[in-house]
């Protein structure tokens, strides 16, 4: 494994590569592309942090935990809640900030605060030609030229290898409250999600943990802010949803949200793991149609499914739109394409971008299509 210690070394590695490179940060997502392994994990360290401007700049290989602990000292956080995939994927290693952005890893707060890509302000990266490039900056509003920052978020290193990222951070709320309804079916859960999201109460999480080991399903709604405000909004939502049995009202139920974010209920189960981004209102018919277990996040818009590994979920979706990613195939083998193939004009554009940024096709080749 090659572990460059600065951007110049990284550029040299890519420039001089004679074949495919398997790019990773902390390698916690279990993505294994054939090629010489290159990791950014030694490009490490926070280079700038301005709490009063809500911005941080860090080298791509900086451990996520390091970023989070520095932010916590100032009462701030990464609002997009990047997941820790180690449990689900059975991987070792240390999650990195570059990996979180390269995979656009966004947790439950996606519904209110946005995705990882919405927080990424600037990038430095090395493209497939070995050129060191930058785009964006470290300010929150920037429309100077094309937004390659967003393009790099979620590109899994296929257009370039991130060497440094600058991003927006947010204050960590003083208080987090969670309403928990037990035993609702998916249709009822969706009603809770919709009523909560379509309220003025600024919901920051709407998820459903499946039944497991004889315990009923849990439908969760999160509200964050100053304590008196959280208490007020919990009461308001409870009364708005009084057709259902009274929910439990918990304060600081971080473990529950971590279970959602990291898909903990599926981590010790054998089977394929799929992640589907769908229209929220399609959630009940999606879980009814796809045989398996399902964990729901993003108010219905994200479904994690544990399936028989011989089944291609995409074949079963029918008229339900969106897209599905095969996050974990059984026994490490990749039975189906990881990412959903795209329709023709879009696929041609994506192919064109890859050819421009990585003309030799050496950066995680084949990973995204």
């Amino acid at each position: 494994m090659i572990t460059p210690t600065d951007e110049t070394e990284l550029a040299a590695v890519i420039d001089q590569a004679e074949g495919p490179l398997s790019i990773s940060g902390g390698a916690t997502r279990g993505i294994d592309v054939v090629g010489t392994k290159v990791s950014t994990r030694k490009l490490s360290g926070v280079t700038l942090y301005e709490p009063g401007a809500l911005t941080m700049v860090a080298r791509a290989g900086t451990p996520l935990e390091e970023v989070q602990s520095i932010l916590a000292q100032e009462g701030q956080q990464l609002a997009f809640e990047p997941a820790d995939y180690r449990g689900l994927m059975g991987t070792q290693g240390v999650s990195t900030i570059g990996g979180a952005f390269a995979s656009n890893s966004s947790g439950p707060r996606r519904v209110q605060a946005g995705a990882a890509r919405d927080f990424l302000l600037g990038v430095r990266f090395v493209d497939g030609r070995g050129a060191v490039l930058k785009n964006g900056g470290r300010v929150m509003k920037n429309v100077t030229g094309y937004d390659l920052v967003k393009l790099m978020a979620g590109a899994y290193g296929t257009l370039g290898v991130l060497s440094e990222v600058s991003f927006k951070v947010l204050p960590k709320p003083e208080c987090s409250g969670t309403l928990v309804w037990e035993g609702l079916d998916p249709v009822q859960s969706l009603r809770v999600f919709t009523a909560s999201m379509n309220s003025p109460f600024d919901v920051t999480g709407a998820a459903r943990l499946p039944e497991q080991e004889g315990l009923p399903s849990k439908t969760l709604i999160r509200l964050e802010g100053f304590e008196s405000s959280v208490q007020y909004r919990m009461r308001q939502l409870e009364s708005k949803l009084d057709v259902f049995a009274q929910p439990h009202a918990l304060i600081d139920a971080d473990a529950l949200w971590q279970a959602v974010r990291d898909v903990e209920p599926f981590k010790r189960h054998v089977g394929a793991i799929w992640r589907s981004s769908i229209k929220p209102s399609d959630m009940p018919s999606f879980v009814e149609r796809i045989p398996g277990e399902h964990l729901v996040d993003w108010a219905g818009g994200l479904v994690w499914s544990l399936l028989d590994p011989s089944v291609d979920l995409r074949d079963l979706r029918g008229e339900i739109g969106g897209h599905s990613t095969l996050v974990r195939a059984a026994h490490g083998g990749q039975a189906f394409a990881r990412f959903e193939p795209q329709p023709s004009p879009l696929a041609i554009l994506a192919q064109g971008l890859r050819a421009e940024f990585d003309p030799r096709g050496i950066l995680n080749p084949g990973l995204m299509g």
Partner: protein
Amino acid sequence: MEMPTPDATVLSQKAQLVAELSGVLAADAIISDLAETRAYECDALTAYRCPPMLAVLPETTQQVAEVLKICHARNVPVVPRGAGTSLAGGALPTADCVILGVARMNDVLETDYDNRIIRVQTGRTNLSVTGAVEDDGFFYAPDPSSQLACAIAGNIAMNSGGAHCLKYGVTTNNLLGVTMVLMDGSIVEIGGAHLDAGGLDMLGVICGSEGQLGVVTEATLRILHKPEGARPVLIGFDSNEVAGACVSDIIKSGILPVAIEFMDRPCIRACEAFAKAGYPDCEALLIVEVEGSPAEIDAQLTKIIKIAERHSPVALREAKDADQAGRIWLGRKSAFGAMGQINDYMCLDGTIPVSTLPEVLRRIGELSREFGLDVANVFHAGDGNMHPLILFDANQDGQLEACEALGAEILKLCVEVGGCLTGEHGVGVEKRDLMLHQYTAEDLEAQLRVKDVFDPKWLLNPAKVFPLSVTAARRSI
């Protein structure tokens, strides 16, 4: 303003082009008479004007595709136009171009509250998107000052922001899907009602690409439920530095206001004279707005006032009701109008790290004296998006040039302190030649390659965003 020399071959084909376009558009959708094309000679950057060869006003995505296909075959440059409110010259024509206006495409195609989206044709104005859903308690968050007039098409092209993006983000954070027509006439669908479009983040790169990658004809936008209420507090200070420090302290405190607006003395005075909002006469003024229930608003404003009091404010006025809130916003919202009454002005749009605010304001003051032109500052302080307004007299020889030179220096200053040339208006023609101050030639080349993929013939809005010298080879193919 240097623009490419009109292509004589293209100009000579005007009659054939009109004939061909007549096959796909209604007669009144093709504007070819010089007197009428003049209506499209500029956008809101009125210092630069040039009537286009033709303007067309299609009504459907299919018509847009047909128009582009015809222009593509004849190598005719196309400049897409929303409502023509760009402050950066994003819709400025060239003499050999076809202006493709989406003004007739303004329908709401779908409102879906269960999924919190609205799908519109992109000629619809920003404010009328909110207008379509507000009776049901929803709104569309990006709120550029021109929202009454500006079109969603232009908002997407420029990735428009507004006063409330500190909390709600800019256009790119609220755009879930598009129908876009490429220059060759092919129609691409990206994203939709689901939160994350799959594959590479094409929506991200299209948003803010200034109409150079494709013509977006339909958009799926995220709508949000309105908060219970919102109220601002107005705080006056006797120095810009202190006001800047107060902004930083508010942000650090853990409160996230929906807006923090900043005005300096020249701006306060002009607004006061124009709108009579009752502003205090002081060096710097902040408007900080928070949202929630009445009790939540009280609690947040109390905290903000406590922070402000540590900075010895010279004025402090909390809006107690909607009427008082309206008065506090009145002056701010009429700032540009107020300036327009007393002078010609040029509005800049650089963004800086919030921490550099006091230093940047001081240096803008120095530059202003050096160039002999007054600068008034009004801007979104929470996210560092400056709007220095340079006042000049267009009828006085040399003042426009001096104003442009001062503007360039101020924008270079923004880049120097770690910021950027434009936060929400776009590069257009206005800031094109400053791009090499922010990016290296190689950084720009990477952006040009993106356009190569979407528009290999470089026909869509080709003279914008990048210095002409940088794009010359590509444009002449």
